[in-house]
């Protein structure tokens, strides 16, 4: 696709470019190589993540989770072309939300993760920067490079642990309200099994600690 891409953001592992084609706004996500890794690891990571991401964007949508539609996948360049979702990340919005609105968004976020888990998949990096809230206040999930299928209780517990971790490092002021609402939304869709998964989340949190 020959089109005029403009750099939008630099992620930890990707370059995000924005372009317009046929009046449609698109995102080009490229995973450039990292010179400090040996080639074998570098290309293994770039390819597997690009391929995971593109497959999971589509699989998640089949589970009813709003995700950008994939238009093009290039495993040589390790890039994906997908729909541009206009909005702001949940991360950026949190600080300026009233508590009631924050609870609504967090419950919705919890439900998206629950739908993924009910489809036996995990996101792998479920931080608030990977949730886009659009103008209609609909939540979209992005950044599936670390996602996995055939998820076990352990993997689901880890996903929740990562949410907890993101809240305590990034949204410490609203941490309690957010965690509570996310779990509320999550449990409402996962059902009784959510107790098992939440228990595992707490286990995992204790495990890495020094005793």
């Amino acid at each position: 696709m020959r089109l005029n891409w403009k750099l939008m953001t630099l992620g930890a592992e990707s370059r995000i470019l924005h372009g317009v084609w046929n009046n449609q706004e698109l995102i080009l996500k490229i995973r450039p190589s990292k010179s400090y890794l040996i080639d074998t690891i570098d290309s293994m990571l770039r390819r597997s993540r690009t391929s995971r991401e593109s497959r999971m964007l589509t699989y998640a949508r089949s589970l009813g989770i709003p995700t950008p539609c994939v238009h093009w996948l290039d495993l040589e360049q390790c890039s994906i072309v997908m729909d541009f979702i206009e909005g702001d990340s949940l991360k950026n919005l949190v600080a300026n939300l009233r508590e009631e609105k924050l609870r609504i968004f967090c419950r919705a976020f919890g439900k998206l993760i629950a739908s993924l888990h009910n489809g036996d998949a995990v996101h792998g990096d479920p931080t608030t920067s990977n949730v886009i809230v659009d103008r209609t206040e609909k939540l979209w999930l992005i950044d599936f490079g670390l996602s996995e299928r055939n998820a076990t209780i352990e993997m689901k517990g880890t996903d929740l642990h990562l949410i907890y971790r993101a809240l305590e490092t990034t949204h410490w002021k609203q941490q309690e309200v957010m965690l509570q609402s996310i779990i509320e939304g999550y449990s409402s869709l996962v059902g009784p099994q959510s107790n098992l998964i939440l228990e595992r989340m707490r286990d995992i949190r204790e495990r890495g600690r020094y005793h």
Partner: protein
Amino acid sequence: MVLISLGIEGTAHSFGAGIVSDDGQVKSNVWDMLTPSEGGIHPREASRHHSELGPLIIQKSIANAGIVPNDIDIVSFSRGPGLGPCLRTTATMARTLALRLNVPLIGVNHCVAHIEIGCLDSGFRDPVTVYVSGGNTQTIAFSGGRFRTFGETLDIAIGNMLDSFGRDVGMRFPAGPKIEMASLDASTFYELPYSVKGMDLSYSGLLTAARRLYSEGVAVSDICYSIQETAFGMLAEVAERALAHTKKDEILLTGGVAKNNRLTNILEGVAERHDAKFHRVSPTLAGDQGAMIAWTGILQYNAGDQIPIPDSHVLPKWRTDEQEIIWRA
């Protein structure tokens, strides 16, 4: 008048005492490390080591600094996190000294001390710290008045993983440096489980797979090389994520595993990619030692933080983000 701090460290298998003055001079730093026996550290054994050698090490740190006990203005000790028996032995020595010298007692968080001595050593103000040792693998950064753990191991620490593999293949403790040497002779890379979860990581799968390669007769040098590239690659990735996430521009590498040159080289690459500065903490200040406790004690004391002896119980599970970092506010 300078303020003189005695710092006592004893959270795990090392016991150390250091003298630091409030102008940032490390006047002495003495420590001794117990070689862990099969299966890791035994808390009781380590605490016995501390109580037997502690008084001598403290005396030596005072003598090496060229001062007398009465020159000491504050006594700082590692209050946690760590192994209960070790912490208690160390705290008892600190309390006794503080009482005898009639000076304030300061309870210091071990992880925070690693960061603060690293900042003193590097001149960094606000780094993302990569703290790698036998018992810890964490990326930590200051945010909202506290040091927050952005990522850590979900199972075993990187140093523990290296030492466990080393022991299996007959390397003496600590195996890290021997693994680094061996990897220089490698010719082939073998794929090992690369396990990053968000900003956390896991090393137990890697250890199991490395052991399997060894039992299959793969050359030790090749396994060492593959372990290093994989384990350090994972660490680089979580450091990079923490850096991108916090938008900070300094990376500080500390802890016992910081001595590894390949790890240093990889993290320099991360820093370069993000236009960040990089510093590896000097070997004498990177491991567990008393100077870091002494220095952090000064920062706390100057901010008005000291602890009455009756309240000075140890905190084996003291999380880094539980302490308000009043001197940085």
